[in-house]
């Protein structure tokens, strides 16, 4: 049960983020929540890279002598997540840039107020 702890945590973080995206009416909060949502996936991937069976950690393929080897995890998911982190940061950057511009043009970053302004303009 404890072995799946990481996955539980990943899903909990994701769902907190997901909730924030849906429930919060402040655009910046939505962006933060979105970032949190994406972070959950990072944990999910990194957890998947663990090479551990029955308490024995894996051995890096380059070691011929297992006794000398330290603990080893699959590096592939980590590498993938480096990319995903970059993506998530750039997404946040674009989102924040948009929000700054929205603030300039609308004078608010509350979604309800923006909708009200648009409805009034029409």
């Amino acid at each position, binding site marked *: 049960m404890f072995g799946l702890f990481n996955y539980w945590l990943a899903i909990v973080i994701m769902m907190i983020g*997901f909730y924030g*995206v849906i429930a919060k009416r402040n*655009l910046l909060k*939505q*962006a933060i929540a*979105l970032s949190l*949502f*994406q972070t959950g*996936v990072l944990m*999910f*991937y990194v957890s*998947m890279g663990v090479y551990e069976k029955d308490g024995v950690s894996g051995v890096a393929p380059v070691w011929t002598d297992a006794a000398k080897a330290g603990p080893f995890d699959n590096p*592939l*998911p980590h590498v*993938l997540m480096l*990319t*995903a982190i970059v*993506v998530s940061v*750039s*997404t946040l950057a*674009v*989102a924040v840039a*948009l*929000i700054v*511009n*929205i603030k300039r*043009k*609308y004078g608010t970053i509350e979604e309800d107020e*923006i909708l009200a302004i*648009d409805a009034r303009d029409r």
Partner: protein
Amino acid sequence: MEFESEFMRALMEHLPVVVVTIPLFGGLLTLFTGLIQRGGGVVAWLWSLLVTAAILACASLLLWQVQTTGEQVIYRLGSWPEQWGIVYIVDALNAYVIFTIALLGFMATLYAKTSIEAEVAHDRHHQFYTVWLLAIAGLIGISVTGDAFNVYVLLEIASLTVYTLVAMGGERDRRALVASLKYLILGSIGATFILLGIGYLLMLTGTLNMADMHDQLTQMHARGELAHNRTVLVGFAFLMVGLGLKMALFPLHLWLPNAYTYAPSAVSVLIASTATKVGVYMTFRFVFTIWGGVYDTSEDMYLLSLLACAGIVISSVTAISQFDAKKVLAYSSIGQLAYIVLGFSMVNEPGVTSSVIHIFNHAVVKGGMFMALGAVCLRTGGTSIEHLQGIGKQMPLTMAAFTIGGLGLIGVPMTAGFVSKWFLIEGAMEHGHWALAFVVLLGSLLALIYIWRLVEIIWLRPPLDPKRVVKEAPLTMLIPMWILIGSSIAFGIDATWTAETAQAAARVILEGAKL
């Protein structure tokens, strides 16, 4: 001569990666046009035109290569074997998709000059074209790669750039900013779901190569390991939701109408004709190439076809009551996408053929129609019904293109839309589902209503202000517009080439789907 053939040989060898690297680096170089002229100006446009022309040439070569040899083109990046490195695979399906994107990219760039000059601030053109080319790079990259994680990366390149492009409309109409942010949030959720789905696949198979994934899954299936394996189901579910968001499949389409409506005209042309199509292409790859034959997806496909039917009817009904012509087209895009989804959800040859052929046909028709509306926006300052009233007499060429394009959306014979519809109905009947066929026909009728409403406004109503002088659209707009609309007619009259290409692609897709 010697050099030329050497060059051609090298080019042919590296084609699959060249179609992505040209716009990628070409896009980055566009930034430097700002040094030549403030904001890049016409230099940035000319450079982008050159780059997109080069992509189009390469994409055509690639398509020609695949069609003449009839084999897959496999390109291993850095010569790493498929299991470890990234591999680009081009077959009858994606050569066709790449060609469609390249063609539309070139036409949209040709068109962009006048429209962008009018709609984007003059000191930012180099930035615009940089992002523009990067978006094309991302879209083509998704279609060419055979690596699941690479799909995600390129998808994010395409998405982030498209969000930015949409937001560029904020100078004309601030609603573009909000639309772009909504698109960003929903798009990122979709992409994250796709990433999760890929994660489950990686967990299951230990590989990221699509072909390898398929092999691993079929072997596991043969060994009976997938019988009660929930990982495979959850992965599929995450992917389908993510892809549904990217395809704007009803009910995940909410980001689309505003994004298409408030984006700059040229951007609407590009994204309406390519962005969602790439989502469809990814779905083909995940559902058929990876999952095909691994487990029985007929129930999922049934669900998809129901969603598609709902999408066709609801989006078309919504389109009827819109006041902005761009929004009519945006809702119509959701409906047309649903036709594509309906086609492949039948999992038979005519159905999948209709999907594949409609990727091209709809791109051409919708691209041409958005171009026409962009020209109206340029000349009158908007695309709402008041702007369109009686414009037919003032901009006859533009509006004739719009009308013919509209006939294509309805699916009138002798337009490309009819060919798609023909295969779709044939697929439904072969499938034994007359009800699906009638939903398609109902969709055509609804399309007739929403298009004809605009046609009457354009041609039969008097202009709102008869003294207003409206000139015909400039040639840089008319030429690409009529090339697209003309090809919609040409491929409606003689669809042999498109139909055979699509049938070949459909066979590739269904090859993977055999149980």
